[in-house]
């Protein structure tokens, strides 16, 4: 009896306390951001002085800040599209074709995931200088592409492995070439994965700091700009306001991506009787 009851309704015991502490540890520091972004004081300290939207106004009026936001959005968007495209084709190759060296190829694509960002940053910086390319948002983009493609590929591999390869064969059998089969069958079925991959690659690029720090020239992305601003205490509340905006937007984007990914799962079944 006892064991059944405890299975049905676990009591709020040690694990419950642990769970609450865990969540508090993650989210309470983050919640200070919006709290102080509305605080009418340049000092990040209690007690709160009063409500203000001043920092949000400053944020909108700061050219440097808005430029770096715009830079980050541009780099993120381009990286998302390129990483997802590369990741999709790579995933298609490793899931669909019996090619020689499949294992090593996957390993090499995945490798940037485990190489420390600072090492990658230095290596790419050396290359950029050696080749005389110079530092710009392009070099930042290339760096971000390198780290987000493995994620894109991982997402796409799991998506493509999920559906029956007979579907692609059936399409070819019915008269569509490999290319039109991709657009009529593979793409629509992989779409939830593609959306998820776009959003994830964008997010990775948007908040990546180390590579951007090494690889950006005078024109920086947002994280690098914020880091630069931290030296000036008066600018800090503005950064908090921006952080709050990003937090809210990220929350919606990630929720949407996850919703879309889950919705896709139900599309998957093709052979179940």
């Amino acid at each position: 009896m006892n064991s059944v009851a405890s299975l049905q309704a676990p009591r709020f015991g040690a694990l419950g306390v642990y769970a609450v502490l865990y969540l508090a540890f993650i989210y309470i520091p983050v919640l200070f951001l919006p709290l102080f972004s509305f605080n009418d004081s340049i000092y990040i300290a209690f007690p709160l002085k009063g409500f203000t939207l001043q920092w949000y106004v400053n944020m909108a009026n700061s050219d440097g800040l808005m430029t770096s936001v715009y830079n980050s959005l541009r780099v993120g968007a381009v990286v998302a599209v390129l990483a997802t495209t590369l990741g999709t084709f790579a995933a298609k190759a490793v899931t669909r074709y019996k090619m020689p060296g499949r294992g090593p190829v996957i390993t090499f694509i995945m490798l940037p995931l485990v190489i420390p960002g600072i090492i990658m940053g230095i290596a790419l910086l050396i290359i950029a200088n050696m080749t005389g390319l110079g530092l710009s948002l392009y070099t930042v983009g290339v760096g971000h592409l390198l780290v987000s493609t493995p994620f894109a590929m991982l997402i796409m591999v799991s998506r493509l492995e999920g559906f029956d390869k007979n579907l692609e064969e059936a399409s070819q059998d019915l008269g569509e070439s490999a290319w039109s089969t991709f657009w009529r069958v593979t793409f629509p079925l992989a779409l939830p994965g593609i959306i998820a991959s776009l959003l994830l690659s964008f997010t990775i690029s948007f908040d990546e700091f180390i590579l951007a720090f090494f690889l950006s020239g005078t024109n920086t992305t947002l994280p690098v700009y914020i880091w630069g601003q931290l030296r000036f205490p008066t600018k800090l509340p503005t950064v908090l306001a921006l952080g709050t905006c990003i937090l809210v937007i990220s929350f919606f984007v990630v929720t949407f991506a996850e919703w879309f990914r889950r919705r896709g799962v139900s599309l998957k079944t093709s052979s179940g009787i």
Partner: protein
Amino acid sequence: MSDNDFIWINAVTKDFGDVRAVDNVDMKIRRGEFFSLLGPSGCGKTTLLRILAGFEAPTIGEIIIDGQPMSAVPPHQRPVNMVFQNYAIFPHLDVRQNIGYGMRKSGLSKEEIHAKVDEMLEMIKLEGYGPRRSTELSGGERQRVALARALIKRPKVLLLDEPLGALDKKLREQMQLELRALQREVGITFVFVTHDQEEALTMSDRIAVMSKGEALQVEEPVELYETPNCRFVADFIGTMNFFEGTVTALGDGRAEVDAGPLGTVSAGSPPDHVTQGAGVMVAIRPEKLSITSERPDGQTNMVEGRIGPSAYLGDRSHFYIDLEGRSSPVAVASQNMERVSDRISGGSGQQVWLSWTEESVVLLPPE
């Protein structure tokens, strides 16, 4: 090119690495025929079907369909369509879009395609199912949609990869009849892969029995059953009793074989491989053996034995007869045309006679 070699599988071999999936298969399939590839799993029948569809390229050999060599023709340009084992219904499309999928390049207008899909829906008796998603279909309905999706293209050849395997027994038997009737109606050549010998016998005009990548025998169902050409075919299709023997006399369209525990067996129309003094495998179907309690008159082939286990199946009975000097019992199937009790009363252990005609004996090459 005649209708007799509409499809020519010309000396086709397919290797996957070290594994030889299809081994020098050479056969011709007639126009409008219901042709089955029959064999246990791993015998190469599905690989051969995929070679016909163009999904696999033969390592050696060539496929010729209606006089056209196929090696340079990719799957999407071949005049064949396939019904996949799991049906491969597109999950992101509804039934109407699935059936019309292959019509994009047909040159027909939207209205014409719509009408054609309606025609197919009517043919497979799924009128009104057009807007349904594939996830809302039962196994039998999916099978029909897959069939319609392939047949709407009016292929020269329809390839079917165990399309009935996933259905339950009752539905499978119903679909066997429907499929056969449909094939007669549309007149398209069907190449049908199955591991179910009964299914192959029921549906096919001709059957190729495959084992380990080789096509052992290509024949009509009756011939395949009555005159198998090797032990594998004889064993795979139906039940067969085998006895090792030696040819003692040959001539006059008959052969005499010393078959050990079975005694001297007289066989009619011996095949070419039978030679005087050589080893031979004597094969007799259970239902060709007559079982009597008295020694039968006027029969050359007979042997005395003892009834072992038996089973009464209503319309027929199965007996296992122990012969002197033979470890495995002989299977006998007997139609219960009269009340059994009078004929074989003693049950297990009773002394009985088995007899059979010369023509019911099949002589196979020795192992």
